[in-house]
């Protein structure tokens, strides 16, 4: 009985997002056809660019690393019933803090210390950024979705201000940037690949997040508060502290993504940091139904789609923003698919047999 019912629920949680992905591929095909391209050629190109060769797959993995981390910024608070979309802002803040920390210790510290300092700075900066959203939510009842969205704009403006002013490297002429992190202090690549260690960060953090939510007392308390705040209060759980702590952890994951981008890809902070990994992370979290392990898999899938943008442009003459159309379609269809849970009889558990006396509804 037990395994039976779990099996159905798991099947539902896997089939619906997959069906949503397939349906959005279909819609995207219609869009491409309208734009004058052969949909099947488009599908083929995406597949080839994402997973077609070892070279392409490494590209995909490089893009998947920050997505895994930013997706947690939405997935963790979702367990508390909060919808946070400040991933981009937390990533940017993490990136800025990482560069600042890295540059300030690079002159005298060994690379491992520099990397550690960058990671910690990124984690704290991102954490405080979204932690503030949680505090606003708890103490002043400010809607966390709106405030985290608006905080993105503040973070991006702050980035532009800092790299164009106080933190600017005078030699960066047409693309204002900070001073670069010395090459020796940058994150290396995993042996025999071009993929940097950020991927490992992503996978490890996703596993930790899963463990934290499912296997610890903290996660239990958070799930309780997310499921029914009244029940959490009756059990005396500190709902406010939980809200702020979960938001801090969420932000710190995205902040770490910012550190990874800076320390492994760009080597400095500039406007390239704001590359939509935050927004794509929201999508990853929703497709993965806020399950951190699933998020790491979905991130690879979506990383592949993002990686195919330039190929669509070169081979099929579609604008490279086409992949964002696809991303948008997937998001809409996935959000719609949320409304389908519990609608299909095949996924339903057989009815619980109860004595009729206790199942009678209450009269008013």
């Amino acid at each position, binding site marked *: 009985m037990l395994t039976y019912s779990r099996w159905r629920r798991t099947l539902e949680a896997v089939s619906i997002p997959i069906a949503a992905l397939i349906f959005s591929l279909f819609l995207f095909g219609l869009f491409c056809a309208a734009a004058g391209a052969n949909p099947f050629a488009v599908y083929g190109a995406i597949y080839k660019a994402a997973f077609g060769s070892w070279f392409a797959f490494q590209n995909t993995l490089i893009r998947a690393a920050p997505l895994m981390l930013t997706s947690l910024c939405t997935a963790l608070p979702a367990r508390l019933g909060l919808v946070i979309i400040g991933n981009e802002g937390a990533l940017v803040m993490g990136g800025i803090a990482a560069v600042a920390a890295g540059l300030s210790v690079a002159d005298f510290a060994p690379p491992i210390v520099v990397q550690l300092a960058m990671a910690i700075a990124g984690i704290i900066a991102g954490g405080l950024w979204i932690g503030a959203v949680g505090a606003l939510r708890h103490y002043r009842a400010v809607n966390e979705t709106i405030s985290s969205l608006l905080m993105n704009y503040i973070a991006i403006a702050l980035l532009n201000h800092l790299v164009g002013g106080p933190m600017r490297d005078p030699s960066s002429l047409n693309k204002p940037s900070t001073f670069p992190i010395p090459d020796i202090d940058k994150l290396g690549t995993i042996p025999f690949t071009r993929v940097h260690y950020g991927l490992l960060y992503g996978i490890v953090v996703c596993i930790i997040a899963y463990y934290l939510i499912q296997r610890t*007392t903290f996660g239990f308390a958070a799930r*309780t508060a997310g499921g029914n705040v009244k029940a959490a209060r*009756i*059990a*005396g759980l500190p709902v406010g502290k939980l809200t702020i702590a979960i938001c801090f952890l969420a932000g710190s994951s995205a902040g770490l993504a910012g550190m990874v981008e800076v320390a492994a890809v760009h080597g400095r902070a500039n406007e390239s940091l704001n590359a939509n990994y935050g927004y794509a992370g929201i999508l990853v979290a929703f497709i993965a139904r806020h399950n951190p392990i699933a998020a790491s898999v979905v991130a690879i899938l979506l990383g592949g789609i993002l990686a195919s943008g330039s190929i669509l442009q070169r081979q099929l003459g579609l604008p490279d923003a086409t992949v964002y159309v696809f991303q948008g379609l997937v998001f809409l269809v996935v959000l719609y698919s949320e409304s389908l849970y519990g609608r299909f009889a095949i996924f339903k558990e057989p009815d619980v047999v109860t004595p009729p006396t206790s*199942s009678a509804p209450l009269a008013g």
Partner: protein
Amino acid sequence: MKPAVKTIEMKELTLPPELEVVNMTKQFGQLIALDNVSLTLKPGTFHALLGENGAGKSTLVKCVMGFYKPTSGEVRFNQQVQAIDSPRDAQKHGIGMVYQHFTSVPAMTVAENLVLCRYESAALIDWKAEYEVLNAFMATAPFKLPLSVPVAQLAAGEKQKLEILKQLYLKSKILILDEPTSVLTPGEADEVLGLIREEVVAGHLSVLLISHKFREVTAFVDEITILRKGKFAGSGRVKDLTIADMAEMMMGEKRIPQTVQKTLHPDPAPVLQIQAIHANKDNGLEAVSGVDLTVNSGEIVGIAGISGNGQRELVEVLAGQRTATDGQVLVNGEVYRASRTEMFQHRVFVLPEEPLKNACVPHMSVAENLALRTFDRPPQSKGWVLLFKPIREAAQSLIKTFNIKTPSPETPISNLSGGNVQRTVLARELSSDHINLLIAANPCFGLDFAAVDYIHSEILEARNRGVAVLLVSEDLDELLKLSDRILVISEGKFAYESSIAEADFASIGRSMAGH
């Protein structure tokens, strides 16, 4: 045609039809919510439907309005049987209902809300014509409201007037008012009911008022019908009845408290001390206005009251679900803010009403819900790490002891029936062998006799062990049976207090009704 004749004709034309409910029965599964009830609403009268919570008042009007299909029985208009299958049918027969809660759109104006409530609105609205009609309507309406003001800017009394105006605008001849004054101040309530009464006296309307406020009934109503536990319990003209008569019909015959096995506790010490607690409702109005109460060890203190008089908010404050606006709560002489540490230290447990809504996480499993109070200490966890085996084992043993019917401990609790959800919460809150203070709110609501007996014996057993129990209930029998001391809460204050031996049934009834 002479003017005099015309007025008489108009009066006949506009007189509301006679509404008869004949032998109405409504059954939900095994539960008979309404048992063979009849009622006659004569044209141009103000009729009240009285009864305690769960007496079947709402079920009766929902059958009349077409929300429910009655199991048997019929509705007649002027002696003619009419089938009412939907609220729309009721509207066609000129019956309109005003609910306890406002149904207007706050951001829209009065005029827009009035036009909106028509069932057959056209796709295009000719606002100029509509305003002419509305102005003419307002000129004859019993109360005036500014048409162009957004509803959000109206006071509660005005919003309630708008609800009634909607029905008049829809040309309803029979108004059903479901506790229309529960959100109003007494002054607003008197004004609204007074103006409606004028319409009734003028023969424009018949009104069926659901209420349990005797004050309103004696001031405005012509006739009453009283229900008790789904059955007809009496009717009559208000001027022929005293409040005591009505209270007796509503609550049944005088009852001698059932004797139960109670042991006297040696040296009672104050466990729960409530000091000048104030608390607000969700809408910001004050619900609890400074109550003081002490509950000693080995004592059950019962709080009676008609729902909506602040008892829910008081329980929520004690349970940690609501912040008091003033005053403090002491447990064992120490300030108590319902944190997890304090709950554990002072061993406070709660049986709230509506357990699925108040004390369970619906999508989490039965085992997880059972572990809600214990998951963060050994043996169910070690440091930060949850240990699933002890959680599951504890759940299995509780499921067995408390006879919870669930396919497995891993089943989401929302899949269980109401009675089994209640058992789950009971298992969690009463299984601990070291309870010090128990707060229970309507713990038996909606349960069958066996379950009620079981819960009563558990509560009594806890009391005999020395537990301090605060029991808030709408069931007077339950309170008289279990309590050592009984209080009545009315409009956020205690209106009556006595030991159970000296409890006077009539005064309890009067205090409950706000007299």
